[in-house]
């Protein structure tokens, strides 16, 4: 019987050390857990299910539907929303006849004075450059597959870059920071939110969507020229 959650021990690749299995010829039929290195038979779970390592419970393969479509949709939306986020006003503040409009660029430039200047580059990278770079890398790697073409040159590198940059893409953390900041200033002045604010709020949802729908294992298999 094929069970989705392969916590059952049948899937453990259990053989004794002295039996020489022709492992090298059958690498495609094996999978190693990324988090504990356990070698397992590759069992693709039924659609919508995730198989987990029986030893450490780390997800192995999640057989999600329309992985390419969903990931591409997330990447394209990110690129569009980020362009809007930079272009439109973010937040404006008004008090006693004075008003101040702050764009995302102003937030990035907040540290540009004095010795905190390098932080400007870091903030720019975390909230704009890296999210955009990831989106572009994902589109480059996945669009040819979506169109039924072979992967573009360097598609694998590009997808690897997108995954490696993931922890450093912080658009969703930024918008939470903005929410905290707004609580601090609402007593001080009148605050109005611009389209850019909502674009960032939407980006947060896109991040959640991408986490839910992306399966690395599936994309890697599709990107492998040998397996097409």
């Amino acid at each position, binding site marked *: 019987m094929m069970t989705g959650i392969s*916590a059952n*021990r049948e899937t*453990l690749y*259990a053989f004794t*050390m002295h039996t020489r299995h022709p*492992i090298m010829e059958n690498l495609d039929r*094996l*999978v*190693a857990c*990324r*988090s*504990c*290195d*356990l*070698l397992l038979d590759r069992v693709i779970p039924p659609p919508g299910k995730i198989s987990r390592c*029986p*030893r*450490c*419970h*780390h997800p192995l393969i999640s057989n999600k539907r329309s992985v390419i479509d969903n990931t591409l949709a997330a990447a394209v939306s990110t690129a569009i929303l980020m362009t809007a986020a930079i272009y439109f006003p973010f*937040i404006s*503040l008004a008090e006693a006849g*004075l008003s*101040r409009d*702050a*764009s995302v660029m*102003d*937030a990035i*430039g*907040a*540290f540009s*004075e004095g010795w*905190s200047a*390098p*932080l400007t580059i*870091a*903030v720019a990278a*975390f909230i704009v450059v890296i999210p955009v770079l990831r989106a572009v890398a994902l589109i480059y790697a996945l669009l040819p597959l979506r169109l039924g073409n072979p992967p573009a040159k360097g598609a*694998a590198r590009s*997808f*690897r870059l997108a995954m*490696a940059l993931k*922890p*450093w893409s*912080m658009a969703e*953390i930024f918008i*939470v*920071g*903005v929410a*905290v*900041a707004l*609580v*601090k*200033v609402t007593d*001080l*002045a009148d605050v109005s939110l611009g389209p850019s604010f909502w674009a960032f709020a939407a980006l947060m949802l896109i991040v959640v969507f991408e986490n839910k729908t992306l399966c690395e*294992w599936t994309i*890697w298999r599709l*990107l*492998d020229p040998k397996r097409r």
Partner: protein
Amino acid sequence: MRMDDMAASGPQKTITARKAGLVSCGGCGTLAPLGQHRCDRCEATLHSRRPDAEQRVWAWLVAGIILYIPANLYPMLVTRTFGQVQEGTIIGGAIELIEYGAWFVAFVVIFASVVIPVAKFVAIAALILGVRNGSRLSAHRRMQLYEVTEFIGRWSMIDVFVVAILTALVQLGFIASINPGPAAVCFALSVVFTMLSAQSFDPRLIWDSIEEHRARGRT
């Protein structure tokens, strides 16, 4: 006995990729023979275990802890209202929020800027010490600790973004203006270094050390 412990110590031989003479690519997970230098599929450099994990984890961790000290001592925000200058530290900012009555937001700030960083320092140190000396925590618990640490660490950056947006927004001349203090840079660097420390750790070492301890116990 839980399921994971059974699988780890069950009667049958569990075999790792490394024991089978294989290395799984850190980039894409493809298996290759041990000793192969570069992954065929994604061109990543192959390592059976992340190289020099112990030294790298400690180096980044110590750097992160050192920077966390000035991050708390120096002001995060310098506020000028009607000519009066007020300097606020991380803790000071949270206390101010409590005085406004914004309990929930104060909780978020304290959680992101104090609880998470300190818990992360302790967790990473415990993980790397556990690999060398063994740990009272089960491998499965340590694994969860690692996953939580990796997932949650980046959220500490919230306070840096708060400072950025306040600086950008509150520039109303004489009425009120806010500028970043030296703590902002220290805090941001501390978060980045701690993230690098967690990324240098290799969770496979937890399971390796369990196997080693068991093997030693048997002989």
